[in-house]
């Protein structure tokens, strides 16, 4: 009974906080609303006995939203706490499309003949996940690791203001880098 009440309470918080992301009039509040929605979903995942993934969702998303709030302060060129931001386009189509998608997904969720549970959960879900990752599913994690490394490189390439080609020319043959402010020790 307590689990059911907690689930529905968290569900209401998750959805309302999700709606608030696009309703509140500051980007900082939108970030924190999204963080609240993620925390509620993370707690729901904990209710579903997936301790490691639930805690991971909460920790990761709280940090990510904190970075997002800082990012908005830095780049968005507006007062992140006060300025109104009713900046939408195509809302006339977006609303019916999203309502239609909800009705479709809800119909599938409610009327599909979901199978009964096959097997039983392991006694220690987190330990079982660790064994799985270090054993049969190691390839999946190895691929994710490579994708993460590629993301780091791509992110730096996209976000970097000046790269080695700006400094040393397209063929990298310039002897002295063309820096706007020469650095290092003068010799």
């Amino acid at each position, binding site marked *: 009974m307590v689990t059911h009440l907690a*689930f529905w309470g968290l*569900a209401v918080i*998750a*959805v309302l906080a*999700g709606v608030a*992301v*696009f309703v509140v009039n500051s*980007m900082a509040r939108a970030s924190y609303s999204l963080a609240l929605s993620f925390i509620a*979903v993370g707690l*729901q*995942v904990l*209710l*579903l006995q*997936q301790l*490691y*993934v639930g805690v*991971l*969702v909460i920790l*990761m998303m709280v940090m*990510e939203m904190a970075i*997002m709030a800082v990012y908005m302060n830095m*780049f968005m060129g507006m007062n992140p706490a006060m300025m109104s*931001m009713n*900046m*939408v*386009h*195509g*809302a006339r*189509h977006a*609303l019916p*499309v*999203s309502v239609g*998608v*909800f009705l479709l*997904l*809800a119909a*599938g*969720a*409610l009327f599909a003949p*979901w*199978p009964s*549970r*096959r097997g*039983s*959960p392991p006694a220690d*879900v987190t330990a*079982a*996940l660790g064994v799985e*990752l270090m054993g049969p*599913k190691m390839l*999946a*994690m190895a691929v994710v690791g490579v994708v*993460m490394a590629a993301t*780091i490189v*791509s*992110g*730096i*390439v*996209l*976000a970097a203001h000046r790269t080695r080609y700006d400094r040393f020319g397209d063929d990298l043959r310039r002897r002295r880098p063309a820096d706007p402010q020469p650095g290092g020790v003068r010799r």
Partner: protein
Amino acid sequence: MTVRTVLLVAAALISVGLYGALSQQVVVMVMMGLELMLNGLILAVAGLWWFCAPDPSGQVLLLVILAAMTVEMAMGFAVATSLHRVRRSDLTDTAADLSG
């Protein structure tokens, strides 16, 4: 709490996120819409895992979704930074070069 109710809540989160991704003009707000959709996806996969097939390998899919969220966020921030640097703008309407 059944598989149906969990999926219903996930459907609501995905739909709200879809509205944001389709309607918002600021790049970061579009990313927030995508994040909200992935949030719903996490809940749906977690619910399906618990109620239908609580096998340890199913949890690996959740970790892959979390990795996808991280990649989306990192690349989105990088693209938004690049866009802001080149065009002094953070709106999707100013980055419609590839729009058909």
